[in-house]
């Protein structure tokens, strides 16, 4: 069996086992959840170690395929290449860190861990899947627990509203994607219909997709996936949802689940529908400015720390979209690096804010100040994370954003120029202001204690370490990403992109006319 099956199968299996354990066995429940996510992380790291970068150009590794519903062409098919390698490793690390910080959940632990493991296993499965239906299926599996987690363990007065808002928004996005994927599937000739992504890509590489179908499917996927990634102006679910979600949920969702849409765009929409992609990237480039500038400005106005982090995470997605809009190897490689880096970053900042909230019972920044003295460890970690968020070199976000900006310069110089402002000025303003409000100053905090033991520090250290490691050595990932992205870019800008594929006349004219003519 492929290690991928274990990576997402272990959390799901653990979720199933937890159902059988009585709810009073708190220690057993927590240990099992930790064990499953830890094992999944170790296997993911092992898989990274064994991944052969030289073969990234040739296709997928660690492939496993079985039939599932052959009459529909649905199968179980997993595999990994440069594009999803980093995402899976990042997802597994974040899942472990999220399980570590779940120790603060004090009510209905059993249900919480079951949902958390479902979420982690679901999203890792989505990234590993090479079958479009499994891909969708696993993502949904990760989505539904969010609703219950926000509702039951959420924070604040608006949690009911937030739970419904995030669920309805994301379901709308997911259903648009489903219609798009189905329409794509139905473009295959009836006896070759399959949801296997590899076969579909091969098929449309040889024979371009029909123009009249493409003009429906591409926007469906673009906006469906866009809603899932909080593309401006469909982003309003994100800040409030994250502010109300319990910390581990926010970490997993903002860090990992949200990257699903970007991944889908790169993996499916760009290579298969190049002609429409060329047309729509202009729209995408301007919408992503909405993310970068508008949401950056909104983040500036926030007084609640979680709302600030949520808005800044929406703003960061703008750079990822800009990289996709650039349709260049450099830009898309940068996008994937940003996705990985932002996964670590979002999880880290939400973990820190969760710790803070637990200690001082508020996240209003005006009530904070001078916290660095009593909380040196968390403070240092969070300041580093916030600096990473405004693109400081040395953290993984910097190489990603730099690659995106360089990559998009050829196609959209004006947008890139404006985006630089968003990255350097706006982000710096709100991040540095937040640092001053929260950590500096001389407000006394008697009786406040820092994360005491190694175990409490572990998740923060793990996420920060990954961020710095990738920041200093981005080539750990970029080489294989680049090798896998190149075929995508070749397809997206190749011959099918320039000449619109000829639309065939509908095979049969409307049937009514025939019948009437017969009269």
């Amino acid at each position: 069996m492929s290690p991928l099956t274990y990576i997402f199968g272990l959390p799901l299996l653990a979720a199933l086992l937890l159902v059988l354990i009585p709810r009073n066995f708190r220690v057993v429940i927590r240990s099992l959840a930790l064990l499953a996510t830890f094992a999944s992380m170790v296997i993911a790291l092992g898989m990274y170690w064994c991944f052969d970068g030289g073969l990234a150009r040739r296709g997928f590794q660690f492939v496993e395929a079985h039939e599932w519903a052959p009459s529909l062409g649905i199968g179980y098919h997993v595999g990994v290449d440069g594009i999803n390698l980093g995402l899976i490793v990042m997802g597994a690390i974040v899942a472990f860190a999220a399980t570590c910080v779940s120790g603060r959940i004090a009510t209905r632990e059993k249900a919480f861990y079951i949902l958390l493991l479902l979420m982690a296993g679901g999203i890792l499965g989505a990234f590993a899947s090479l079958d479009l239906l499994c891909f969708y299926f696993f993502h949904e599996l990760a989505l539904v627990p969010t609703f219950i987690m926000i509702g039951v363990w959420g924070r604040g007065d608006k949690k009911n509203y937030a739970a419904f808002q995030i669920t309805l928004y994301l379901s709308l996005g997911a259903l648009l994607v489903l219609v798009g994927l189905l329409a794509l599937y139905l473009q295959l000739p009836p006896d070759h219909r399959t949801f296997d992504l590899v076969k579909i890509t091969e098929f449309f590489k040889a024979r371009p997709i029909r123009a009249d179908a493409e003009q429906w499917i591409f926007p469906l996927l673009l906006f469906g996936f866009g809603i899932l990634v909080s593309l401006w102006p469909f982003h309003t679910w994100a800040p409030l949802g994250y502010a109300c979600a319990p910390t581990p949920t926010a970490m997993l969702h903002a860090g990992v689940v949200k990257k699903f849409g970007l991944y889908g765009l790169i993996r499916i929409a760009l290579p298969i529908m190049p002609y429409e992609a060329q047309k729509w990237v202009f729209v995408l480039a301007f919408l992503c400015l909405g993310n970068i500038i508008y949401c950056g400005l909104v983040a500036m106005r926030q007084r609640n720390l979680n709302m600030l982090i949520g808005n800044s995470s929406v703003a960061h997605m703008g750079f990822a979209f800009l990289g996709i809009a650039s349709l260049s190897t450099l830009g898309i490689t940068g996008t994937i690096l940003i996705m990985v880096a932002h996964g670590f970053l979002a999880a880290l900042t939400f973990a820190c804010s969760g710790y803070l909230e637990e200690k001082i019972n508020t996240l209003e920044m005006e009530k904070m100040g001078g916290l660095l003295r009593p909380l040196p460890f968390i403070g240092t970690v969070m300041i580093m994370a916030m600096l990473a968020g405004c693109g400081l070199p040395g953290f993984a976000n910097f190489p990603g954003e730099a690659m995106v900006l360089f990559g998009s310069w050829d196609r959209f110089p004006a947008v890139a120029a404006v985006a630089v402002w968003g990255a350097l000025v706006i982000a710096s303003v709100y991040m540095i202001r937040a640092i001053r409000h929260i950590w500096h100053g001389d407000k006394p905090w008697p009786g406040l204690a820092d994360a005491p033991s190694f175990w409490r520090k572990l998740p923060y250290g793990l996420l920060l370490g990954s961020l710095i490691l990738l920041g200093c050595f981005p080539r750990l990932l970029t080489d294989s990403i680049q090798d896998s992205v190149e075929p995508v870019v070749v397809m997206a800008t190749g011959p099918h992109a320039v000449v619109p594929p000829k639309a065939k006349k509908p095979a049969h004219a409307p049937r009514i006319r025939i019948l009437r003519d017969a009269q």
Partner: protein
Amino acid sequence: MNLTLIIPEMAVIGLALAILLLDLWTPAQSKPRLGYLAALGLVVILGLTFSQSIASDPVAGFSGLYVCDGLGIFFRRFFIAAAILAVLMGMEFADRIPVGIAEFYVLVLLALAGMMFAAAVNDFILLFVALELVTMSFYVLVSYQRSLAVCLEAGVKYLIMGALSTAFLVFGIALLFAAANTTNFTALSAASAALANDRLFWLGLMLILLGLAFKIGAFPMQMWVPDVYQGAPTPVTAFLAVGSKAAGIVLLLRVLFGAVPFISRQWETLFMVAAGITILYGNLCAIPQRNLKRLLGYSSIAHAGYLLLGVAALNSSGSAAILYYLIGYLFTLGAAFIVICLVCRQSDDISSLAGLNHRSPLLAAAMAMAMASLAGVPPLAGFAGKFLLFKAVIEPAAVNHAYYWLAFLAIGGVVISLYYYFGVIREMYWSKDPADVSPLRISPPMKISLAVCMLGILYLGLFPNAILVAAARAVSAFKF
């Protein structure tokens, strides 16, 4: 005359008569237990239908009135399963029915016999008879709690609306006969060319469709659904929602794609509009509902709309998807109504579910699963069904872009429905003030039925292949 064809139907009627007779000698306090006999008999009959081999060619009987084919056998099993659920729930409900519990079982069985005939009709005359057998039995069943005003109100509404739709149906059949000089499906489909533009024939068919829309609860004949669902005793509501609706659907399929495929082809816009309006109406009206059964009534209108998507698609995958969706709907509604039957003893208000998670985790899980399945969340049956229906609707979209818009509308409906279905889940898991926190006791038959329903929901969601192949085979005789 080929009586061997209708052995299962005869067996059901025989069972009903036997219970009616046994009722005379059964002491009053053990009358509810007659339900065991009814359920057991139905299980045996269900097993019998599986031992019957499905003939590769349809066998017609009774001078072409009746046809025994894959579709008929498929729905025959479906209806028996629905009736078993209704009988078991009736036993649970017996303490709330003042008199005549044995007749309750008998009426359920008679309605079942009508549905089984409906599954196999090949002539408008038998269609009418079968449908009337179903509807007559339901007139009584709906108003079975005679001491409750709301129940009687539901009965009267059902009677009036039912009589109206029957009038439409009869008038339609008469006009159709006037135009075509036959009521047999096979003869009609052979006489296509001459009838395709006959306005009288169109009018007759339109009236018949209205009569069937009443059974399905589809626009424009959906007005009765919420009131009747709310007022009827819970087991009857369940049987109405699953059995009666499926009977309407199978008749619709047989009429449209068996008898008059040449006209259905021209009416695609009509079906699309009807499906779209039904979906929107059901989902939008369900939003403010606080009564659980009324909410499920509106949701059942919405589901009638989803089922009509498969009709509007006008292809074989659409009809197969309808069959698949109905099986999922049987298990899902089965679970939901069992929970309602057990929990909502005083009122059907959503708030009576509050704190169910503490009172009985099993019931809460079953209800949450049913609601998620109705909303179409993977990996449950509702998702697989909606997936297949969407697939069928998008199939012709490449030629006729209006189908894309129909799909968007259906998506809109699904998103709206998430709001009220998840509202029920919220009530069970994190509502503020549970009024009643006493633990609930569940009887063994209910526990088994609940487990079967939950397993069915999961099985249909995870392993669609086998049943989808069976459904595709069942509709292979249709012409599109």
